């Protein structure tokens, strides 16, 4: 572990396993520096900065949680979060076709860092999310419930066993795989019915 970012790497592993309460406290503690950083780049009303912050923090959290950002770190975690915020800011201005935001030399390192491909955009999975949300509606209970408890609410097999009154954890796994197969059939039908419907590469 590189000592330079040792503290941040410890924090990173806490974020991966942290409770909702811990994530919320982190969310609150990064707000002030994030607000100051974005204000330095471009004056925006607080309400807009807060909206940008929620998006950036969501991406930040999921990149860590899903292992997209893993040790060894190449920057402070805070810098990583700011970089995501800056990317969203650029995207926002590009969409609104306004003048580009300024960039001072101190931020160039951040800019270079966030041209790395491991930044997953919050919007990138929107198409897949909507597709799966719609297909889940066509899945019968208790299949829908077991998939939501597992993959969305991230319950353990033991918790699912209790919540759904299933005899064993092995039975939970068996049912989940059967339900995933059913969902996959719906995906197949959809792909065959609309072959040109694909997310943007």
């Amino acid at each position, binding site marked *: 572990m590189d000592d330079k970012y040792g503290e941040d790497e410890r924090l990173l592993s806490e974020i991966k396993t942290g409770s*909702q309460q811990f994530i*919320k406290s982190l*969310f*609150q503690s990064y*707000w*002030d520096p994030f*607000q*100051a950083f974005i*204000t*330095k780049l*471009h*004056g*925006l*009303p*607080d*309400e807009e900065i*807060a*909206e940008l*912050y*929620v*998006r950036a*923090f*969501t*991406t930040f*959290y*999921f990149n860590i949680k*899903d*292992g997209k950002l893993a040790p060894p770190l190449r920057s402070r975690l805070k810098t990583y979060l700011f970089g995501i915020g800056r990317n969203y800011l650029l995207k926002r201005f590009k969409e609104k076709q306004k003048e580009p935001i300024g960039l001072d030399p101190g931020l160039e390192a951040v800019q270079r860092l966030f041209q790395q491909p491991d930044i997953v955009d*919050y919007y990138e*999975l*929107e198409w*897949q*999310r*909507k*597709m*799966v*949300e719609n297909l889940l509606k066509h899945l019968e209970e208790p299949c829908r419930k077991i*998939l939501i408890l597992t*993959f*969305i609410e*991230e319950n353990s097999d033991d918790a699912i066993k209790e919540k759904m009154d299933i005899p064993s954890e092995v039975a939970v796994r*068996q049912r989940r*795989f059967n339900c*995933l*197969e059913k*969902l*996959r059939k719906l*995906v*197949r039908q959809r*792909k065959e019915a609309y072959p040109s419907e694909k997310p943007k590469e």
Partner: protein
Amino acid sequence: MEDLDYIYRHFTAGLSAEERKTFDARLQSDSSFRTQVSDYQLIFEGFRGMRQERFFQEARGWKGELLADSRIGDVEAFRAYLSGAMPESEKAAFEARLGQDPALAARLEEYRLLLAGLKAMRAEAFYRQAEAWAKELEMAPPAQAKKPAVKFLWPRAVRYAAAAVLVLALAFAGMKYYALSNYSTDALIAQNYHPRNTPATLSGREDLFREGFNAYSEKDFPAAIAFFSRIPEENPRYAEAQLFLGYACFESGRYPAAVQAFQRAADAHDQRFSENAEWHLLLSRFRENPASPAFASLLDKLTRDPQHSFHDEALRLKASLGSFWRKLAG
């Protein structure tokens, strides 16, 4: 089930290096396996998107607390800055922030006016108190040494009070002006009116549509309304024509007609236009009567639908309508 377990671990980074090699080789050679992986990729990405969305909505709930804390921090900074108690090092950074954030500068100005108003109220209260003391002195047994001193103070107290009342009035006028500029019905509509700049296409032989759009672009609203109204329901561009008819009616102040046109555009269920039509239907109802149940119900619908393209705008509009400034705007 074995394959699925294998695929699932692939997408959740649970494969060993050795397993990954086997996985990649099979992906190259087995087309049915490839199809399966591609289907599950979509499913697991969809689940990931749903988890993100769920977290995003949760974090949005935390946002309100952040802004409240931030406002408190700002007020502390305003007090220090205006009283001259802010350290020089912080002052430079604060002034830079003021220069870059017009909203913060506006809030500082509001705060300055409020302080002036409070001072004025204190001066007014002091004046009343002094008046009471003077009356007491007039009733009390003669105390010759004090009376002239009170008489000497009167003109100055009156001048202070007059100035104080003036400052209070100015403070209120400033706040009222800010509220009207940003939270009146007209101001909220101006902030939220988002007509499509151009039609989906102007090619083809839809002459009525083209002429309608030309008239609308030149702000010849009666002509635009006439052209768009003549496009029949069976025309494939009917939904778009109703949408632009709605814009033309709205921009020329024909709000009931705008409501009808946007409603027809929304009811046509053409995905390209229906959400934009619904948003402008909401604005038209708002313009007609901000207190109407039809407006409240549509606003409620949009704020409850995170998939709607105008969901964020609807949330902001709802927040504005519930704010102190909206009440002050009247």
